[in-house]
């Protein structure tokens, strides 16, 4: 067999054309559209992999141990024995943002906390999700006209699920996490699109 000559710069630049030529040659030789087969195979792999990743993500949602105010009491209750949260894959609350997927914003967010909450969000492993738990995180709640809070965490972070109530029961948080699971795994209508957080991250530079 003759030794392969090193590619010239022209060949590098025309690699695409070269590839086409090779494929057409092989198609002539074997009388099958090889590039079509490759495309089909690639699509199949991508689909299977995407479903597999979705399944994995939606079944191991790890929340962050992060309480701001009153609603954190209900998070404690969520972690206790009455609601057995581990059966759905919401494992132990993790102490560091780097090991978590879900940030549950429980309580009102003051102006001095905003940069800190934002930094926690940025430290989380991607893709990550945000649940606004309770009235204060949703809209400011009873403090909406106070001079030192922001009217809802959605002014700073992209929120995936809102939970209403003051405070919502721990059962509501369980439902919210199930909805988030459906959203990730593509069972609900909102999930043909990627998560809100994924969308936003692409245009992150243009955001405040």
């Amino acid at each position, binding site marked *: 067999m003759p030794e392969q000559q090193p590619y010239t710069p022209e060949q590098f630049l025309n690699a695409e054309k070269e590839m086409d030529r090779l494929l057409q040659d092989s198609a002539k030789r074997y009388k099958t559209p090889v590039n079509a087969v490759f495309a089909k195979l690639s699509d199949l792999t991508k689909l299977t992999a995407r479903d597999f990743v979705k399944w994995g993500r939606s079944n191991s949602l790890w929340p962050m*141990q*992060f*309480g*701001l*105010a*009153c609603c*954190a*009491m*209900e998070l*404690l*209750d969520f972690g*206790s*024995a*009455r609601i057995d949260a581990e059966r759905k894959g919401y494992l132990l609350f993790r*102490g560091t943002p780097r090991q978590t997927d879900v940030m549950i914003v429980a*309580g*009102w967010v*003051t102006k*001095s*906390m905003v940069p*800190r*909450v934002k930094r*926690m969000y940025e430290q989380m492993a991607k893709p990550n999700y945000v649940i606004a738990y309770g009235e204060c995180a949703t809209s400011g709640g*009873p*403090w909406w*006209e*106070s*001079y*030192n*809070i922001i009217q809802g965490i959605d002014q700073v972070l992209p929120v995936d699920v809102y939970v209403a109530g*003051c*405070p919502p*029961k721990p059962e509501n948080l369980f439902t919210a996490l199930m909805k988030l699971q459906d959203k990730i795994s593509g069972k609900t209508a909102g999930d043909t699109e990627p998560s809100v957080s994924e969308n936003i991250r692409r245009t992150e530079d243009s955001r405040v």
Partner: protein
Amino acid sequence: MGVMRINVGPIHPSTHGVLRLIVDVDGDTVKSVEPRIGFLHRGVEKLMENRMYMQSPSYTEKLDYVAPMAWDDLFVSSVEKAIGIEVKERAKYARTILLEFQRIASHLLWLGTFVNDNGQLFTLFMWAFRERAEVLKLLEDVSGSRMFYVNWRLGGLQRELPADFKKRAYALCDYLQQHISEYPDLLDSNPVFLERTRGVGVLSKSDAITYGASGPVLRGSGVAEDTRQSEPYYVYDKVTFRVPIGSKGDCYDRYRVRYEEMLQSIRIIRQALDLMPDTGDMIGMPIRLIGPNAKPDPVMVRRELPRGEGIIYMIPDKQRPYRIYLRSPAFANLSLLGRMSVNCKFADLFPVLGSIDIVLAEVDR
């Protein structure tokens, strides 16, 4: 080794809320602690000046979210004093019972998290939350809400107690008595727990008085001061109970004081249930667009909250407070953290912080 400065918080799993601590350590020994607060400040007092009197309980409840009913009671009592309304006889008993149940729920939550801080992970936490869930269930059936009740009305309560309230309350007392008595098996006979709490975070009697500490922190240092006995309200003068005090003022004493207080609360509830009349009115005034006018004299009300002594000083206007000041016990107690944790190990800092039992929303207001 030189002194190193460490920042802890404000978002930290074991600071019991958003508290920031500036800690100076020499090796592993804490030299000084400086709490930085204000991360939950939202101007409650200012907001309350712009609300009608009976719109404000939903603000005062969120001050101390571990025991919301206690602050609710403090505020509504000060309004009653300003307007000059007597509390109905049967409502006095009902309020006493509910407040004591709330105190038990608050101390149970404290105990579960405190033992967690000490490294005994989750066994007692699960136990305490099992009992707390039962208490909250009863309070939910009384008021209609699990955590924020808002069922205090001027002169009474929002609605009549459920028909089987007495029966259920007695049964709950038995249940609590039985299960709370099991806790010392896990704690007082556990060498690790004793080692980590005895002689740690010692607070002297004079320091506690000078800094204005109150509640279990003050009583743990050996001062028998309890507003329920020194200035009784509702039916606390008709029931007998003991005010537990500690001797050394360390974490163990504060744990012991709170533990004994839970048993004393059960005792108070049982006596109040015995004395409570079966018939009589206990429903307070409904919330109206315009309520009764208050007299312009300043009022001050003291109440024994689960965390210490809470005071409201209010200059009333006709329909809303002209000025209101809330004295939160947790704020005064937190200022003692620096005194308590000097020369303790860094790992003991968080149990000492936990033993004060702070609620940051009440500190920051």
